[in-house]
């Protein structure tokens, strides 16, 4: 994936623009996950009756793999060899990272998690769709709202009502077609 039409010579770079600090931190996190694996793995109880290698061996092997591979990646990044950011039809690799949008999207997902129980699934889902579409730049707001409400009701009807998935219907409680 490193070479493609987009990052053929003379058109942009293969890696994420900017300094590789984030990439370095990510590689270091992989190493530290391996270390945590070793430390926490030592606490796994091994029953004396175990006839095989026991429940500790495989976790240790995976942790070792993470430490070695992670260390290799740290070295690579330090030596300037960086990963090729994922491509896609809707991805503009030449654009700078829009962190605000990422934070907004993540925030709306988090909000959704806290709204499902008090407000019911349809309202929580409509708020998520409305917020995500707005974060991604859809205008005007009233059209986003209409689509959000229709989508949430359709999904609640199809999955909650027809397929019997137990989505809390919120204010639709009592209307049988929306399940519950």
């Amino acid at each position, binding site marked *: 994936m490193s*070479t*493609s*039409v987009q*990052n053929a*010579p003379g058109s942009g*770079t293969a890696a994420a623009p900017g300094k590789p600090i984030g990439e370095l931190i*990510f590689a270091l996190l*992989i190493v530290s996950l*391996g270390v945590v*694996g070793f430390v926490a793995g030592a606490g*796994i109880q*091994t*029953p004396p009756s*175990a*006839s*095989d*290698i*026991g*429940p500790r061996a*495989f*976790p240790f092997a995976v*942790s070792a*793999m*993470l430490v070695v591979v992670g260390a*290799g*990646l740290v070295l690579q990044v330090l030596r300037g*060899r*960086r*990963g090729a950011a994922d*491509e*896609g*039809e*809707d*991805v*503009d690799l030449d*654009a700078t*990272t829009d962190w605000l*949008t*990422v934070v907004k999207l*993540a925030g*709306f*997902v988090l909000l959704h*998690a806290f709204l*499902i129980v008090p407000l019911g*699934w349809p309202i929580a*889902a409509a708020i998520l*769709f409305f917020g*995500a579409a707005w974060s*991604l*730049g*859809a205008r005007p707001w009233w059209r986003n709202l209409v689509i*959000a409400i229709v*989508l949430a009701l359709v*999904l609640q009807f199809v*999955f909650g009502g027809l*397929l*019997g*998935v*137990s*989505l809390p219907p919120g204010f639709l409680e009592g209307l049988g077609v929306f399940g519950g």
Partner: protein
Amino acid sequence: MFSVDNFFLLMEGFATAMQPMYLLYALGGVLVGTAVGVLPGIGPAMTVALLMPITYSLEPTAAIIVFAGIYYGGMYGGSTTSILLNTPGESASIVTALEGNKMAKAGRGAAALATAAVGSFVAGTIATVLLSFVAPYVAAFAVQIGPVEYVALMVVAFLTVGALLGSSVLRGLASLGLGLFIALVGFDSLTAQQRYTFGSPFLADGIDVVLVAVALFAVGEALYVGSRLRHGPIKVIPVTGGWTSWLRKDDLRRSWRPWLRGTFIGFPVGTIPAGGADVATFLSYASERKLAKGENKKQFGKGAIEGVAGPEAANNAAAAGVLVPLLTLGIPTTATAAMMLVAFQRYQIPVGPQLFESNSALVWALIASLYVGNLMLLVLNLPLVGIWVKILQIPRPYLYAGILVFAVLGAFSVNFTPIDVIILLIVGILGFFMRRFGYPIAPMVVGLILGPIFESQLRRSLAISQGDPVALVQSPVAATIYVVLIVIFALSMFLKRRQRQFESMVAENADAPDVVRASAAEPETAVVPTAPRTPDSREDTDR
């Protein structure tokens, strides 16, 4: 020789798959599959993951038929996108995108779509026939192997998927390791000891595979695309003329050989874990380019129909080939196959060498539904292409907002607790950073799914040998598998290197029409690329 028994079993499979209810499920599957194949940002793996928690009420056969339809449909839909959308897509379809997109721009989009659809049908059907022939024999061999050989096969799957499904070997292996690690969280299945739960009751049952898959595929993708959304209008190249006039006699004459060659390249490549459809399409494209003569050769890089017909056929044949190790050994070699494996597990269908014996009715119904689905897809794709073009134009904010809503729906439906939505978000953020820093997602999903099976087989092997690790390589079959692994590895590394050089050369040529003519005049340099490595691709020397 195709035994009479298997033939009858296949006919019984057809009898099941042709029931009106199952035909409807297959139709629904291929419709959804084509739609998600057409839509950027959604793949068949993600769709199967999303649908799994919300199709619990279906019976196993119906669910498996739906997922098989999605699997094949996704392959068809992808070609429409790469031919008609004016932006470069994923590298798996880069060669098709190149020739097909050039054809579309030259007003030959209809022919490109038609050769892709008919080629996919021809390849899909032949490959499904091959699958029906080959799979029972592999399965008969597979039931004889013990845990030691099984461990060897899974090592092959891990290493090839980890090291080959991406541009960087180390990043692939890191992704695999993350998947294996997450799979460890929870109770150990053999000793019931808690591992990596840190005393949390939420982690004691482990982190649900579907939850992680949905998070990585859907939430990770939405966050990542959101961070770099391509703005401006979506440029879809219009298709003109009725679909009956799409494939002219001349097009057909130039297409049928590439279809067949693509099929017989794609199927074997799909069955071995060598990097999936990516390698198959590349091999087909390179061979078509080499075999073309005269006027046709000059069109390569500018819209040669052979360059669409061959790779598209290879892509579909490889998709059928992937089902051979999945159904006979229980070993997935792509992310979508991994999700199919989870689907089997969810419905309490034991995957592995016993599948053909213990659930033969279901397996043959699945294979029969692949034949049916293929035919449906041909009918759906030719006349209905206008609908898919409309789907392609969905405004991106709505598309990705919708993906997020489906993701939270799927996550919440796993256990009906909002905590799963928060775990979804956390793993989704991990998926975002993995995409950003070039870590492939598929190895993580494969590690997550195969990890527990691998560990139990490994421990069984070592219990039999009383802890002696030498036993793992002593069996002749296992030793052979490891030798084959080394061969596959060497071959794949070589092919990947070739492919990268080839793609960069093709991309350069596409930008400069004069060079195409120059390289077409010298056939040797056209196929054995000597083009210098592009200075921007820093990943090439990864080991």
